[in-house]
């Protein structure tokens, strides 16, 4: 905009539009105070209010008999039987990570973990879907290295294992990496606690770190306006994570809830205390008074605006009955965490902020000093509030129906089918050995051990399958059950056709879970998009949500939570639409490890599902040959369901000895990955009707799964496939020390292994 920022009226400098200001004035019946204006500006930011996306998100199917808590709470919660439930959530920390990769990623991990234990669940697993530009750029390597170190440094120390994730590299993320974090927690069902400030007279106790100037308008502002990475003006909002503080908070909060000492618990995230205090009250239909004088400040001279909007990390708000306060403070002392009464629930239906009220009227006190005075005196109103707003108004921000329009270039994009040119360049009979090796070495496909070895992925002794598997598999101690987790996203498919792309993202995550023998029970999504003021972006968004919803309905997976991140762009280049799906699957009985993505010498190799030309958006076409266009693979939802159920059952009764789904890089890469893992070669014939050998090898059709089968079982497996109406084809055997597809490729196993294993380390440590 033309006007320099500081010559603008306050509300605009705080990011409120003129219309939004008018709405505030109408809400209050007067001009807002500076503090009120600041609170509205953070609470009504895109990040906190979902003002551009709310209208669409209601489309997601959210119901299922086992869903205990759906979207809209700290985390979604589903019942897994045996008196246990799991809490799941996924969040983005894209913009903070672009400014400071280590701390941005670290604080992202800290935030998602707080969402989980605020429900009374113990966080037991993290996943980190990551996206960066291409690694030949030094800044990108710096961001990648920093983000991975940040997740490692915080996650390992706070004591939550990172059991899987993604690392995708594509130029669309050059100036704007995507750092999404998924967390899962487990709890006895009766320990479930919600963020509710019930009961007038109850006390709001702030637990954890002191409140500093760090992160003033942080996440909310950073995530709510496009900016250039490294932008000076954003620096003051960089926050430093303290995993040690958070570890003590986890233990203290779980003890708190176990001992039934908290009526409600809420984490302090974006918009800090204003959000936590007002939201808990609004949800309980109560009011809340907060006294900023009670908040422990990290720096001298912090004003109420800073205190209410600070996004300092590692803080929780517990709603406590006065009679329990001493017990709560004692528990906090034991874990050496700060605990201070900063608010009290009222029946005023208003959110009021005071300065110096509580001491005046003797509201009970603070740790370590023993509580003073009577816990619940009537508040004398001669101390005037410095903010006084209807409690619900902060939480229910404006709702925008942004204009949306199909991009002008969409037809051209879809018409640019990479099939024909690639058919000309690689006709039947062409040697694809070099192409296969090139694909195995692309960073997106290459071995991710360089990343995952930096993460503790074993803590709690649950990890049956960790990084490297299609889905992470965690046993549930004390039961026969296990959980399967996968996060997936494929932006190129979504750009070519967002509806189909949205479906495909859900299908891949569900397929990965099926490959471990699980049935999907919940999905969370992280929707990373560009500037919502661009009609094309909103079209992408609405189509993706529609596609994901259709797939979830077809597979019977309830959506229990999500997160929207807009303004992912550098300058005016919006990123490709990047929805990420996190699917949780349940395995009813796990006796021994699932087969895993490997071949055993002598196994038959069986391909389940339909191989058809599908080069549009594939790694081979788009990354290796820079042909970005065409249509994404067909997303047949009924076929997907059949394949998933078939594969899951074959895995459950162990009639197959290895299994891996076809995704990035296609069938040839899936075969190679299984061969490398099994340290055995393959001899296969890859002739499929309607496909050139190249299309059969490197196309990425949906709902295709490769199985390794003991020859005695082959007939039975093919029979089961036929019964399920799923095409099955025995393509060859696992044998020798070469990867041989007759007349198509012939590669030494050792060469394939090196190409795949050495790629990332070589890129990250150039010699």
């Amino acid at each position, binding site marked *: 905009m033309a006007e320099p920022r500081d010559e603008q009226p306050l509300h605009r400098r705080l990011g409120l539009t003129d219309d939004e200001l008018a709405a505030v004035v109408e809400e209050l019946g007067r001009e807002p105070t500076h503090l009120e204006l600041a609170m509205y500006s953070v609470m009504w930011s895109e990040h906190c209010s979902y003002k551009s996306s709310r209208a669409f998100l209601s489309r997601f199917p959210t119901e299922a008999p086992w869903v205990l808590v759906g979207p809209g709470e700290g985390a979604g919660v589903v019942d897994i039987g045996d008196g246990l439930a799991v809490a799941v959530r996924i969040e983005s920390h894209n913009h903070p990570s672009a400014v*400071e990769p280590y701390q941005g990623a670290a604080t992202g991990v800290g935030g998602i973990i707080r969402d989980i234990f605020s429900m009374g669940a113990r966080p037991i697993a993290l996943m980190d879907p990551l996206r960066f530009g291409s690694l030949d750029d030094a800044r990108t390597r710096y961001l990648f290295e920093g983000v991975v170190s940040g997740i490692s440094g915080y996650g390992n120390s706070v004591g939550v294992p990172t059991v899987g994730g993604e690392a995708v590299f594509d130029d669309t993320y050059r100036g704007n990496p995507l750092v999404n974090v998924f967390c899962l927690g487990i709890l006895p069902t009766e320990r479930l606690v919600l963020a509710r400030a019930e009961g007038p007279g109850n006390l709001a106790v702030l637990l954890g770190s002191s409140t500093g*100037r*760090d992160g003033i308008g942080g996440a909310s502002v950073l995530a709510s306006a496009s900016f250039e990475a*490294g932008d000076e003006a954003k620096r*003051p909002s960089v926050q430093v994570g303290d995993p040690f503080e958070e570890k003590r908070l986890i233990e203290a909060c779980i003890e708190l809830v176990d001992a039934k000492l908290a009526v409600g618990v809420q984490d302090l995230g974006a918009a800090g205390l204003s959000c936590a205090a007002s939201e808990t009250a609004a949800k309980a239909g109560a009011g809340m008074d907060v006294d900023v004088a009670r908040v422990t400040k*990290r*720096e001298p001279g912090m004003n109420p605006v800073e205190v209410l909007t600070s996004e300092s990390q590692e803080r929780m708000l517990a709603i406590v009955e006065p009679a329990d306060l001493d017990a709560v403070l004692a528990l906090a002392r034991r874990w050496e965490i700060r605990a201070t009464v900063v608010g009290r629930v009222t029946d005023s239906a208003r959110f009021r902020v005071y300065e110096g009220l509580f001491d005046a009227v003797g509201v009970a006190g603070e740790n370590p000093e023993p509580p003073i005075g009577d816990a619940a005196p009537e508040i004398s109103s001669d101390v005037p509030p410095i903010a006084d707003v209807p409690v619900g108004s902060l939480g229910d921000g404006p709702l925008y129906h942004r204009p949306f329009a199909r991009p002008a270039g969409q037809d051209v994009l879809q018409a640019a089918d990479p099939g024909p040119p690639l058919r000309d360049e690689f006709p039947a009979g062409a040697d694809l050995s070099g192409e296969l090796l090139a694909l195995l070495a692309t960073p997106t496909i290459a071995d991710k051990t360089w990343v995952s070895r930096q993460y503790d992925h074993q803590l709690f002794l649950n990890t049956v399958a960790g990084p490297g598997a299609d889905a992470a598999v965690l046993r549930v101690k004390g039961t026969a059950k296990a959980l399967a987790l996968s996060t997936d996203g494929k932006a190129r498919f979504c750009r070519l056709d967002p509806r189909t792309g949205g479906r495909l993202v859900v299908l891949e995550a569900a397929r990965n879970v099926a490959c471990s023998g699980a049935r999907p029970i919940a999905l969370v999504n992280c929707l990373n998009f560009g500037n919502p003021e661009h009609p094309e972006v909103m079209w992408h968004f609405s189509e993706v949500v529609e596609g994901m919803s259709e797939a979830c309905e077809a597979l019977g997976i309830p959506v229990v939570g999500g997160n929207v991140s807009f303004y992912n762009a550098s300058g005016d280049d919006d990123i490709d639409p990047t929805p990420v799906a996190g699917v949780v699957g349940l395995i009813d009985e796990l006796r021994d490890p699932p087969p895993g993505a490997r071949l055993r010498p002598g196994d038959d190799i069986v391909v389940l599902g339909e191989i058809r030309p599908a080069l549009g958006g594939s790694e081979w076409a788009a990354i290796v040959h820079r042909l970005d266009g065409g249509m994404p693979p067909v997303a047949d939802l009924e076929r997907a369901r059949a394949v998933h159920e078939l594969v899951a059952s074959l895995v459950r009764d162990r009639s197959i000895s290895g299994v891996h789904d076809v995704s990035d890089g296609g069938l040839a890469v899936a075969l190679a990955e299984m061969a490398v893992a099994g340290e055995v070669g393959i001899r296969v014939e890859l002739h499929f009707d309607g496909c050139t050998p190249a299309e059969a090898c490197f196309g990425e059709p949906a709902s295709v799964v490769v199985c390794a089968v003991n020859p005695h079982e082959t007939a039975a497996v093919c029979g089961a496939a036929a019964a399920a109406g799923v095409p099955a084809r025995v393509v060859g055997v696992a044998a020798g020390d070469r990867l041989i597809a007759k007349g198509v490729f012939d590669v030494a196993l050792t060469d394939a292994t090196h190409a795949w294993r050495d790629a990332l380390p070589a890129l990250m440590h150039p010699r």
Partner: protein
Amino acid sequence: MPAFHAHVEVTHRPGIADPAGATVERALPALGYTNVAQVHIGKTINLVVDAPDAQSARDQVTEMCERLLANPVIEAYEVVIS
């Protein structure tokens, strides 16, 4: 080319949290030190750099700080050449 000794001290920028310092401060009273405050933990880098003169040595080390030795987003640094 003459060799210069560079001493770099890296500290947190004001207002940026210092969890390590805070933790040590919390631990000291238990050891009987009740009279200690404002504990901050930083990093030093000592190195030897070949350069035509002290000024260019300083310039190079400053550049190293910006690029590698320090994280200018959250850290401040000070270079001493001798």
